[in-house]
């Protein structure tokens, strides 16, 4: 037994091109790809690009939409690839692929004003980081009952929505020509605020969103429990210098028994360890890891109960099942409202791609469940007659895929897609109420034969003279509810012809004219 002090192991200088470099390259690639794909979602550039690729590859969106609608729709099968990657490599998605994760990582990696010890303490694991699992459980319980609210907190849906509603329009304001016309979206300020808060929180606690709130991270963490490759530490070399903890993004205690489910594969620990005692390898010994994720039983039950209680609370409110707001007009191809609520993940891809900007994120018009789901606001735009872009980009099929032929129909066998019916407000209409010729509505009506027909008449002006006008009428059997009449009506404040959802193809009950079920 020697009393000589242990020689201080020297940290091996990491090579220039190490795995962190690989990670950084992937981060740049995947973030740019995300922005590029979303930017391609427009009439000019869409072609057949898979602009909803990230949404389709998101396992949380796939799982919850499957639970809610009992269908794994088309492209969502790509999420199995991400599941496979996680099963082999761990939560690489969180740091290498997820756009929100990458932004959080970059913001967290900026130089900190805190001292070493404060940084280290900030990165220790806290029990409150279990919250993301409870959120995940709540979301899954709701989805099992057909209530899909995952879009509120799923990072991909959130980021796509934020880019579509605030960031891209903001760039257009700053001069980047992304759109032909500057778009504006209802309630965009709230969506921007939430995003700013998430990014800013990284300056207080590194990757706070990823550690504490992200339900996708929670799901991938549960899968990563079985991953084949993971971080492993050689305890015999450790000198408890905590350099790993200072650099750790996931707060997964690399200095101790690592919490595999929380490790976001930033690989910082590997390259900051003073004794090069941490590495990433195949199936380390079991005692290397803390059992994960170690949920408190009472809190888990509370999460389940909370989810269960929310289902009747939401479904006995008007909006989805009954008493639907007839001003809520959904995009062409949208499913009937109950099915729509089980499929829409509020991602905003349809909002981004819409060429006229008529698709807007809803507030509470469609009930709380409808928050940020797409509705059409004809005071802002109108729905182009043969356009099917929104149906092409919807990842879950909440707006089911349409061909232009499906939209226009093929009389007499195949009806066109109807979004609603227009109604004249004769007290405001220029020819009807103000003895002024107009008929812009009839002019722009795209159906042939037109749904708006005019009847010549002579009306008296205020000075007693007669003026020839054409009085417009609506044929409800031809109207497709596209809203261009409402959008172009010169009567401001409230158009003299307005569209209501009644008569929409997607609903068997919301009809005026008699027709077979």
């Amino acid at each position, binding site marked *: 037994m020697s009393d000589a002090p242990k020689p201080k192991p020297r940290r091996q200088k990491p090579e220039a091109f190490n795995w962190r470099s690989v990670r950084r390259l992937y981060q740049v690639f995947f973030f740019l790809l995300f922005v590029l794909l979303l930017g391609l979602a427009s009439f000019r550039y869409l072609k057949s690009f898979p602009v909803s690729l990230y949404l389709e590859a998101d396992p949380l969106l796939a799982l919850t939409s499957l639970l809610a609608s009992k269908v*794994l*729709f088309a492209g969502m099968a790509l999420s*199995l690839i991400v*599941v496979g990657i996680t099963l082999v490599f761990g939560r690489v998605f969180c740091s290498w692929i997820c756009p929100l994760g990458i932004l959080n990582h970059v913001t967290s990696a900026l130089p900190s004003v805190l001292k070493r010890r404060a940084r280290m303490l900030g990165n220790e694991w806290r029990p409150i980081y279990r919250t993301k699992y409870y959120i995940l459980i709540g979301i899954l319980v709701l989805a099992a009952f057909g209530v899909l609210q995952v879009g509120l907190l799923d990072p991909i849906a959130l980021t796509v929505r934020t880019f579509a509603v605030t960031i891209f329009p903001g760039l257009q304001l700053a001069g980047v020509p992304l759109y032909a016309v500057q778009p504006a979206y209802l309630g965009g300020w709230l969506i921007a605020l939430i995003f700013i808060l998430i990014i800013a929180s990284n300056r207080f606690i590194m990757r706070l969103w990823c550690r504490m709130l992200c339900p996708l991270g929670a799901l991938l963490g549960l899968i990563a429990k079985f991953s084949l490759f993971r971080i492993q530490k*050689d305890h015999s070399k450790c000198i408890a210098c905590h350099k790993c903890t200072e650099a750790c993004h996931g707060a997964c205690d690399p200095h101790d028994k690592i919490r595999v489910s929380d490790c976001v594969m930033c690989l910082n620990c590997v390259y900051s360890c003073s004794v090069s005692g941490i590495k990433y*390898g195949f199936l380390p*010994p079991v005692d290397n890891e803390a059992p994960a994720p170690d949920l408190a039983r009472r809190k888990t039950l509370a999460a389940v109960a909370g989810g269960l209680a929310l289902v009747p609370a939401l479904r006995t409110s008007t909006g989805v099942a009954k008493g639907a707001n007839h001003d809520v007009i959904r995009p062409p191809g949208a499913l009937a409202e109950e099915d729509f609520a089980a499929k829409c993940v509020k991602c905003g891809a349809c909002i981004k791609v819409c060429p006229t900007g008529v698709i807007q994120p809803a507030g509470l018009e469609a009930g709380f469940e409808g928050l940020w789901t797409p509705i059409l606001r004809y005071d802002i735009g109108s729905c182009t007659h043969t356009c099917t872009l929104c149906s092409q980009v919807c990842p879950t099929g909440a707006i*089911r895929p349409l061909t232009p032929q499906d939209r226009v129909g093929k009389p007499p066998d195949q009806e066109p897609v109807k979004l609603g019916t227009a109604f004249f407000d004769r007290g405001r209409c220029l020819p009807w109420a103000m003895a002024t010729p107009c008929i812009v509505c009839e002019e722009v009506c795209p159906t042939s034969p037109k749904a708006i027909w005019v009847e010549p008449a002579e009306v008296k002006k205020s000075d007693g003279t007669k003026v020839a006008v054409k009085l417009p009428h609506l044929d409800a059997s031809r109207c497709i509810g596209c809203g261009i009449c409402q959008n172009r009506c010169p009567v401001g404040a409230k158009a003299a012809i307005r569209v209501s959802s009644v008569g929409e193809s997607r609903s068997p009950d919301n009809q005026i004219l008699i*027709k*077979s079920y």
Partner: protein
Amino acid sequence: MSESKQPAPDPRDPDRRRVVARLSAAAMVAGAAGLGGWVFYDGERPVRSRRRADRFVPDHRVKVTPTVPAMVIARGSDPARNTRAAIERMGGMKLFIDKGDDVLIKPNVGWDRMPTQAANTNPAVVAELVKLCLEAGASRVVVTDHPVNDPDRCFARSGILEAVQQVGGKVAVPGTSGFFMVTIPGKLGRWPVFEPFITAKKVINVPIVKHHSLTRATLGMKNWYGILGGRRNQLHQRIDDSVAELAALMRPTLTVMDATRILMRNGPTGGSLADVKAGDAVAASLDPVAVDAWGVTLLDADPTRLGWLRLGEQKRLGVIDFRSLNPIELKTT
């Protein structure tokens, strides 16, 4: 450089069994995810269809010998006695109801009114029919209608709920479920129909004679509106076709027309006793068009001018000239 030590068993060497255990755990998760994806995958439809199978309504008529009168009109002050007399003069309920039959009686219970207001079928007539069916050996007699006003109030204030339950019949009050899609031959297409009308073996139509602003009269053929759910408020856009097509769909075993009180004006809801006239008659008939035509004459109108009656005759549901059937008239008091 660490000094050489006696190498301890390296805890990082995964031992075979642990590797297999971990690999199989990962494989099972992968398999479960893949299996779930494969079972639930659908490249075309975003939601599974919840459509239930369409149903069909059978013909409820029974074959009778030519000696059975096609129409009997019983007059008197007691509606129950009138009903019994009319049925017995036809040959008795045993001609129509076999032992063990599941019988459905369809009165007009559409409105939240009391019997004196003559908006719904007289409860005494309905109850007497229930008794007659049970006497003929029916295993079960169900009385039902899908009202326009609130169902509970309609069945209660019309007096039919109590009257039927007192004689051993059952009342089925429809809610939101229990409707199945039936294809109605003709222009109407598919509509939701209340299930008892689909499953009953024998159906007896028991309308009341009332004025109606659109069809001039609402009698037996229009009584069948009460089998439907869904957007009934749109049927008026095709009123004659819908009445005739529904009558062609539902071929009742028997039609018993309640003319005890007649609503002469402001139908089909009525309300004021001044609109009600005493008719003191009950008619039983095998011919739904003829008995409706007779009812129209009680309202001082001409049945040959009504489109829905003419359509019914065209569809060979019966004849408008009820006198050609030689209806038998009898007095009970």
